[in-house]
């Protein structure tokens, strides 16, 4: 077959159609890519209005913000592939952040949540990270168990665990006379290990923190799990057709449990990073974070119809969402109005996404 360039091929495709079909071909092409077309227009517009938008420090900032929200989106993406969702993500994230902060307070500070803990060396930091990931995984396991065992919709199950987790968070913040206040005085060793600069780009005079590298590693690991392991393939099969997976001998129960458990561990990790980044955690930390993560997944093409989506899409979705948020700020748009715009974007993105899956007759 003759090799043709992308545009030439598209042009030939277009010319082969009759008048009625040509119009549809163009509108379909525009609508299917509308999100990206609008993104480009939006970025150009913002860049013209505010010269700082595409400056190195601003780009580095967007990169960091994306790296912060990536782990949660990677976790929740699996739940969406199973045609589910996870409303407990934000609270699990908050619990993990609170635990990390409490376990890694500066030993020299006066009012500590836990007084007899090892010193904040590298080993203890890793131990805390594993601890909060396990805590997240346990809540995920509970989610997965009820979803898989009783065929409950994840919406209901995670709504319940969201409340339960919030209760646990509130109780945790009462420990040792803390009285529900924020947990601060976080050890600088912990902050430096996570949010400290990993390397510096001298030409631009920006430094990239460690957690950006962690996010990159997580993306690679998750890509591997989704595409190269038996568990990943089973996950897509269950999301695409649970019955087919069942009769083919896939352990649907274990797959569902594992997807939720893995998601929980990811929220745990995200909360751990957040504690180091913020330096102070409150009981409200993580509130509604799952909304952004779900929106990012859907924008990135992880559809609620189940069985579709890929890691690249999630990464793209997270970036798109972060860029929009930053741009809205830079354009000086009223914060109240920003919510309305965000909502409208999510609605538009989902509609455009669903349009692709509608069977045309």
């Amino acid at each position, binding site marked *: 077959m003759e090799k043709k360039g992308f545009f030439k091929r598209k042009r030939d495709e277009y010319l082969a159609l009759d008048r009625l079909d040509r119009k549809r071909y163009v509108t379909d092409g525009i609508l299917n890519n509308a999100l990206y077309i609008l993104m480009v227009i939006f970025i150009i517009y913002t860049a013209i209005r505010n010269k700082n938008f595409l400056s190195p420090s601003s780009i580095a900032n967007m990169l960091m913000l994306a790296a912060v929200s990536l782990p949660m989106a990677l976790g929740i993406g699996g739940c969406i592939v199973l045609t589910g969702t996870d409303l407990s993500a934000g609270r699990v994230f908050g619990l993990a952040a609170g635990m990390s902060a409490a376990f890694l307070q500066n030993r020299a500070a006066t009012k500590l949540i836990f007084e007899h803990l090892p010193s904040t060396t590298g080993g203890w930091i890793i131990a805390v990270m594993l601890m909060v990931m396990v805590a997240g995984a346990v809540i995920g396991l509970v989610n997965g168990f009820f979803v898989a065992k009783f065929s409950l919709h994840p919406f209901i199950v995670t709504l319940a665990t969201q409340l339960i987790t919030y209760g646990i968070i509130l109780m945790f913040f009462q420990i040792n006379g803390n009285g529900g206040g924020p947990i601060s005085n976080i050890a600088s060793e912990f902050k430096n290990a996570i949010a400290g600069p990993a390397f510096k780009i001298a030409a631009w005079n920006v430094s990239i923190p460690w957690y950006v590298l962690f996010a990159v590693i997580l993306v690679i690991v998750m890509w591997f799990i989704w595409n190269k392991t038996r568990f990943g393939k089973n996950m897509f099969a269950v999301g695409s057709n649970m019955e087919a997976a069942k*009769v*083919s001998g896939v352990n649907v129960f274990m797959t569902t449990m594992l997807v939720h458990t893995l998601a929980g561990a990811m929220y745990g990790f995200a909360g751990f990073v957040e504690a180091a980044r913020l330096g102070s955690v409150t009981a409200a930390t993580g509130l509604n974070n799952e909304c952004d993560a779900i929106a990012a997944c859907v924008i990135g093409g992880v559809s609620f119809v189940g069985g579709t989506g890929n890691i690249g899409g999630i990464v793209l979705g997270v970036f798109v969402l972060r860029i929009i948020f930053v741009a809205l700020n830079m354009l000086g748009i009223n914060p109240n109005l920003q919510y309305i715009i965000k909502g409208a974007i999510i609605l538009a993105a989902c509609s455009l996404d669903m349009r692709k899956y509608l069977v045309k007759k």
Partner: protein
Amino acid sequence: MAEDILLRMTDITKTFPGVKALDHVSLDVEAGKVHALMGENGAGKSTLMKCLFGIYEKDEGHIYLEGREVDFKSSKEALQNGVAMVHQELNQALKRNVMDNLWLGRYPMVGGIMVDEKKMYKDTVAVFEELGISVDPKRVMSTMPVSQRQMVEIAKAVSYNSKVIVFDEPTSSLTEEEVEHLFKIINMLRDRGVGIIYISHKMGEIKRISDTITVMRDGTHVATKPAAELEVNDIIKLMVGRELTNQFPPKTNKIGDVSLEVENLTAQYSLLKDVSFKAHKGEILGLAGLDGSGRTETLENIFGNATRKTGTIKLNGKECKNRNPRESIKNGFALLTEERRATGIFAIENIRENTVISSLKKHLRFGFLNERSMREDTKWSIDAMHTKTPSQETKIRSLSGGNQQKVIIGRWLLTNPEVLLLDEPTRGIDVGAKYEIYQLILDLANRDKTVLVVSSEMPELLGICDRILVMSGGRLAGEVDAKTTTQEEIMTLAAKYV
């Protein structure tokens, strides 16, 4: 016990609350033989298979595989022991590709954690070559026609190196040519000594492919005989338990003036191209053709349930736009859909709700639905259709297929249609109940309605239609008179544009 009996099921009994679904049923499957399992819907064939595969737990009885007693707890366990099933409803992960589906549940691994895609690809090609299937292992399932997906399903069963393979209505979505291919595969498996259970309603196939026939009725074993000793009529007699003298009711309809005119119908998203025809009042017009030849698409385009590119539809000389089903219903059209369970019934609603759903407007009194008039209409529908149901409040899913179909036909009659588009009206309906549906279709024609019937069963079209349009590759291949034509003529036309 004979040496060559691979699978022996003895005295299998299964009781559901209120129903004895299986009553001491026995079945022997020999190596290298095709054992046909026949019976009406509800005779217990699927229940028996579900007991074999551990989907249901049997109450009594024993299952022996190669003389060793087995009791599978899941289809996975059955597969691992060499008992596979090609399911009637295609259970596939459509968004995944062919080889992901083929090896689902047993992906080959490399390095402990990674799925070995290279091996998967190689093995898939090997299995397909062996069976003479030409499908790209990397193609996404949803982009393939149903028949090819079916072939993948069969390849999957074979790839387990199964000793016993159950085929559950495997030909329902295959073309003649593909059926030939399937039979070649089955013969090959038989020569290899595989024991095959073949479940089908199609008498012709059964006679051709099977060595032994077992007939079941109402959960009991009726007879097991060598296929050579049974004629089609004998099988039907055993299945329904009585002599079926006439398969079709006598034709009494009178054909009147032209009512429906369709011109240059071309679909936007399907292959339908330039279909034009006329239909008369009181006429039953058949639409024949292979699966995917555009029969269903024709009905959907007339009904506005699909996007038309070009084409005009006239009813009694007046043009109907029929841009969506709602408008079509107003214009006097009705569509009985092909997939009754998926797009016909509202399974968890009761008979009354299912009956009045398309004509709710006429039950409105001051903005509220009038219970009494809905009840009256439903009663009329149940009486007129001879629907067998304990009450109007019965959930429709608990009725048999034939009775469900009657409810839906009744639903459409309440909208006072001029044109009825019936897509596979007898699919999945018992032999006995089919006759009643035919009678209903004739009654419709007797009332001067125009009836279009799509069917894959040619004898059925020949038996009830006046004229038959034959479709092929999305186009109209020809028109035949049902009284004078033959199955051969229709088949030749159906292959015209393939």
